[in-house]
């Protein structure tokens, strides 16, 4: 008979060590998998973790790409983590990301071809507002009717995806090109283009926003009373209520913040790296950000590292496909292992297995 027993005092150090251990275990298990596929495991791991940054051949190109890939992940994950800390589960960041992009692009396309300094700031506001309002649907349904925000926010992703397809095929379609889906290329519309601030560095406004969000979240969680309320609500909901924390207010704030940040991420993506409202604009950042948030221990600084790490596995994963012909699915399994090992280690940190003699009725 095996029993699970909650550890009374989970090791603090293990909490911070587990992500690193998880990476190490992933390298080992992933390496074995690559070897089983008949590929050189050392070469594969090197291509995934080292070459995107250090290779002379690819580095100067893929280092900026790392920022471009990681910035939206970090921006979204920082917002999600605040809610997760409070026990408020926004699983629909992908939807808020899409709506933010649609609102931002909508403003740009409405102004086209007028040029003006005020267009980009308006797009930023529209993107943030779009993400916010989309997140308010599960928030208000929860506070008013006590619906489950996990389900509502997740299902709204599919609504947002349909809306995206409808926009790419209909209202936002580029009228200059007959019949083909997809909006105008915002990268060719100067006032709306979220270009590299310094050419070739990958530093666009989304990266700046991610940095600001990380600092803001860090200060809020450690210095501000709101951060205290969030922590309290997550760890001891009853105590929080006695302390005067309004659960409804917290739901609105947490979903609101994560919605705003996801919306911003979408807006910076559509006006920069992606450039177009297109049917498959959404590439899963909103979902991957959930992994990033947990891998980063729901801590803003940790999220930066986790976001960079995941971005690295994407870019390195493509490299290893290209250079070693690893199947794309093997890379996804590899990324999945990362979360699997982290959860397993966390479980082991928080619980212990007890072998008891004989079966108890």
């Amino acid at each position, binding site marked *: 008979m095996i029993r699970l027993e909650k550890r009374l005092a989970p090791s603090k150090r293990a909490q911070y060590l587990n992500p690193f251990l998880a990476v190490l275990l992933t390298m080992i298990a992933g390496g074995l998998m690559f070897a089983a596929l008949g590929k050189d495991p050392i070469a594969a791991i090197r291509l995934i973790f*080292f070459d995107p940054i*250090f290779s002379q051949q690819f580095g100067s190109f893929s280092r900026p790409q790392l920022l471009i890939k990681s910035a939206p992940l970090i921006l979204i994950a920082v917002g999600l983590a605040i809610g997760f800390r409070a026990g408020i589960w926004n699983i629909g960041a992908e939807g808020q990301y899409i709506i933010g992009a649609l609102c931002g692009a909508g403003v740009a396309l409405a102004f086209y071809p007028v040029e003006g300094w005020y267009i980009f700031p308006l797009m930023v506001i529209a993107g943030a507002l779009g993400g916010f309002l989309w997140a308010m649907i599960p928030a208000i349904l929860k506070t008013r009717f006590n619906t489950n925000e996990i389900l509502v926010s997740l299902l709204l992703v599919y609504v947002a995806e349909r809306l995206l397809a409808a926009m790419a095929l209909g209202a936002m379609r580029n009228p200059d090109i007959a019949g083909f889906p997809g909006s105008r290329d915002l990268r060719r519309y100067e006032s709306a283009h979220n270009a590299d601030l310094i050419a070739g560095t990958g530093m666009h406004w989304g990266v700046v926003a991610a940095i600001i969000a990380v600092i803001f979240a860090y200060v809020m969680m450690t210095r501000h009373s709101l951060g205290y309320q969030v922590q309290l609500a997550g760890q001891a909901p009853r105590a929080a209520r006695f302390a005067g924390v309004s659960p409804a207010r917290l739901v609105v704030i947490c979903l609101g913040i994560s919605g705003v940040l996801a919306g911003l991420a979408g807006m910076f993506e559509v006006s920069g790296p992606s450039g177009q409202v297109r049917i498959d604009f959404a590439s899963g950042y909103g979902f991957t950000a959930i992994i990033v948030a947990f891998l980063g221990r729901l801590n803003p600084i940790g999220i930066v590292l986790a976001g960079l790490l995941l971005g690295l596995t994407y870019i390195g994963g493509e490299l290893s496909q*290209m250079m070693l012909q690893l199947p794309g699915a093997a890379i996804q399994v590899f990324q999945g292992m990362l979360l699997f090992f982290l959860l397993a280690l966390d479980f082991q940190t928080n619980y212990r297995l007890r072998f008891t003699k004989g079966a108890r009725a």
Partner: protein
Amino acid sequence: MIFKSILGAATALGLALAAPAFAQDDKTTVGFIYVGPVGDHGWSYTHDQGRLAVEAEFGDAVETTFVESVAEGPDAERVMTQMALSGADIIFATSFGYGPEMNNVAANFPDIKFEHATGYIQEQPNVSLYNARFYEGRAVIGHIAGKMTETNKVGYIASFPIPEVIMGINSAYLAAKAVNPDVEFSIIWVYSWYDPAQEAAAAEALIEQGADIIMQHTDSTAPLTVAQDAGVMGFGQASDMSSFAPEAHLTGIMDVWAPYYIERVRAVIDGTWEQGNVWHGIADGMVGFAPFSDKIPADVRAEAEGMIAAIADGSFHPFTGPINRQDGTPWLAEGEVADDGTLLGMDFYVEGITSEIPN
């Protein structure tokens, strides 16, 4: 100080570990990027068959590589750039939406040749476009469907309301209608190129509505297996899908990219590559057919084969007037043949189709 030395050590490690580049010898390196997994048995699979044919044709003279499941947008731009940096001589990008990115990358690598399937953006001198006249194949299976349906209801699983798909629906409908005036098309849009679950659900819904022939403009084998379970029939897409549903599979339109890929790679090897923009059909071998099922009666088979031959020799065009638009206004006069420009921008149904194009 400590930070610097860590950084230094890491850099040294990185350099020591730096991957060997593709051999920079006289081998021609050919890169492919696919929008789906090579195992989809649909679109991406057929392109990968083309890649393997290139390897078989040129042997040691070429080296091929590919990256699968690359999302359109910034991911595609990054993968193409990495391919270019790794020494590729020619890159085939095999999804419609790779257009803007391919032209961006092509501008940065003027010596590398770029080939874009089903695209329309050609801003750089080193970007070629190629596409297949799938509507020719749709006409043939439309004919077979019109002859073989007993309920006079054909179910059509469509992906996105874009000209390519609308053109296919019109072509199949016109051919079916020509041999069966009572035929009706029910169309379900799944807003995906590859989503087995949704495609299966669409097939079930169509069969429930009375369709006994299923056509698909999506890539998975799911509709065919649903058709087989329900005892109705259907057509495969992109590759020979008969092994997935031998009872239901009548035939299928096959994408045959190998001859074009071999021709273009040869041109790179010979140094004769030139920018092009081709739309090949049955005549050039880019559109083919999976083996015809025994379920197709001999006379229908003979008619279908005759139609294939007539399209190939140019004596028959699936869009030959008189054809009216859905709203009854004339489109093509008696004997008039549709021009390529109208077909490539097709945003209307022909007369007789009862549903509307979603917007």
